[in-house]
């Protein structure tokens, strides 16, 4: 992996990396989709109306100039619900991945740097969490704490962090014995200085690649939990919950449940493509295997 050598930041290499990033059509598509998604989320109040406004006279209306994506069973504007839902999904994806990254990263760093018993205990804990059926654990947590958006995020973060712990531990172990870390040790750097200053910055690349995939994964898992009723509660326009509440009208009004589902698909796709592209650029070993 590229992280086994200290990062080079000469402008020439950077440009080469950028060129490689832009040459891949999938990566470009992923970047465009991600930028669009963020823009939609930021501009939601401007580009869409009230997602909760009901109008029973206008229920299950097909897409029109007035309602771009039609209306749902309560006459709410589907476009407004999907657009406002992007804020929720994006927040879930970023928060969950952030928590998992920090929590798993710290534990992995500790395990890798300290080794011995700490390492053993930390890795056995990750074993346990890997064996847990993710959605059932998340369901148990969401059930225990009560269904809400915050609890949903806690639940999904609880099943995502072990990957980071494993990943960064492996990185730390391979970096720890390299010459530049040895040199810093010889110069008298404390263990923490070695970890934070020399090991962590070089171990972060695969972590970022994984994080990009995970934003999509977290959104997919959270929407699944929302679909079976363990996430945001109605009338919150969380995408999974919206698919669930409109699914019985799929024959009369396919737009109402398809729009949020396609939104989930495109969002997850965007982050997966972005992850693929980042790996291509940042991780030369993964590139060959595409």
């Amino acid at each position, binding site marked *: 992996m590229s992280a086994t050598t200290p990062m080079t930041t000469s402008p020439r290499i950077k440009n080469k990396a950028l060129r490689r990033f832009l040459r891949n059509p*999938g990566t470009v598509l992923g970047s465009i989709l991600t930028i669009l998604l963020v823009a939609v989320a930021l501009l939601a109040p401007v580009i869409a109306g009230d997602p909760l406004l009901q109008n029973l006279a206008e229920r299950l209306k097909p897409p029109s100039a007035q309602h771009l994506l039609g209306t749902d069973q309560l006459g709410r504007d589907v476009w407004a619900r999907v657009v406002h839902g992007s804020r929720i999904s994006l927040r879930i994806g970023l928060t969950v991945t952030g928590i998992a990254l920090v929590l798993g990263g710290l534990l992995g760093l500790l395990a890798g740097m300290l080794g011995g018993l700490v390492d053993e205990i930390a890795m*056995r*804990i990750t*074993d*346990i*969490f*890997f*064996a*847990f*059926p*993710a*959605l*059932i*654990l998340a*369901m*148990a*947590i*969401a*059930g*225990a*704490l*009560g269904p809400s958006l915050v609890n949903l995020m806690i639940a999904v973060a609880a099943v995502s962090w072990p990957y980071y712990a494993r990943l960064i531990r492996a990185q730390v172990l391979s970096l720890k014995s390299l010459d530049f870390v040895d040199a810093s040790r010889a110069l008298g750097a404390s263990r923490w200085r070695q970890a934070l200053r020399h090991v962590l910055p070089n171990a972060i690349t695969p972590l970022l690649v994984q994080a990009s995939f995970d934003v*999509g994964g977290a959104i*997919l*898992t959270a*929407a*699944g939990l929302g*679909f*079976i*009723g*363990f996430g945001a509660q109605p009338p919150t326009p969380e995408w*999974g919950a919206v*698919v*669930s509440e409109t*699914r019985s009208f*799929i*024959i009369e009004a396919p737009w109402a*449940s*398809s729009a949020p*589902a396609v939104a*989930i*698909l*495109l969002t*997850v*796709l965007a982050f*997966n*493509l972005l992850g693929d592209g980042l790996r291509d650029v940042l991780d030369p070993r993964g590139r*060959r*295997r*595409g």
Partner: protein
Amino acid sequence: MLSFLLRRVGSLIFVVWGVGFATFFISQVVPTDPAAAALGNNARPAQIAAYREKRGLDKPAWQQYLLYMQSLAKGDLGKSLRTQRPILNDLKDFFPATFELTLGAMLFALLFGVPAGILAAVKQDRPVDLGVRTLALIGGATPVYWLAILALLLFHSKLGWLPGPGRLDAFLLAPQRVTGILTLDALLARDWEVLYDALRHLLLPAAVLGAFSTALVARMVRSAMLEVLSQDFVRTAKAKGLPEGKVVLKHALRNAALPVLTVLGSLLGGLLTGAVLTETIFSWPGLGSYATASATALDFPAVMGVTLVAGLAYSLINLLVDVLYAVFDPRIAYS
């Protein structure tokens, strides 16, 4: 090999214990009273107190845990708060349906994922490769419940080719229960009509559940094949004048199979997760449906039972994968 096996079995027991302990821990921090949840809104405080005492819910957490472990050692998973039946009986009823569905999905994933991956690798960067990769990307990003709704809409409601939710048509009598796996039981009873109907019911949910895994398998096989195809022995085989198909299927695939084997374990974990959602839509009476109903009712003894079984299944599959890995790859020696 023996010490490796012993160590792995030891860690398996530890992991399953940990899964149970973690679930127990969660059940203890529940702010809702499970007794009140089980008895409903109209229960009087005295009734709730009596229920708590009967179920040992009034004891301190560590005593409850010891009691739980004691009965667990005797193979007793406790009684469900919701169904009022022994959880082991519930699991025996619900597990075979999930097993059948998951196995069907896995077969589907291998049947389509492996050839797609090989084809994509052999025709790297050609339209076929591009098509497989695009499909794999979409398959990995599609919400399984939406795919399920669409599939039902198309193949059941619109075209009428396949039956709707459930495991068997209402007018058919289920065969005598031997394994609980409907297709196998029908086969054992030589009831061809039921077997045909059960297979038709299984097809759609298995395909929907397997879609995500198909994408994963195709990607894995493709990258493993690309790795192998660029190696010297493949070039030698080609240089000797062996036909392309023989080189790909005999020389390359055999060597690419190993890395694919390792993902089968984590694939199963993903399938169990997907099963929860798929079962909900297809009214499939499996562990996923059971877990959802139990978690909704705050029936933690039952949730604990499901997680234990799922954790055990996951660990066993991974153990099996490790052993197979050692058997198939003589370079690996476990000491």
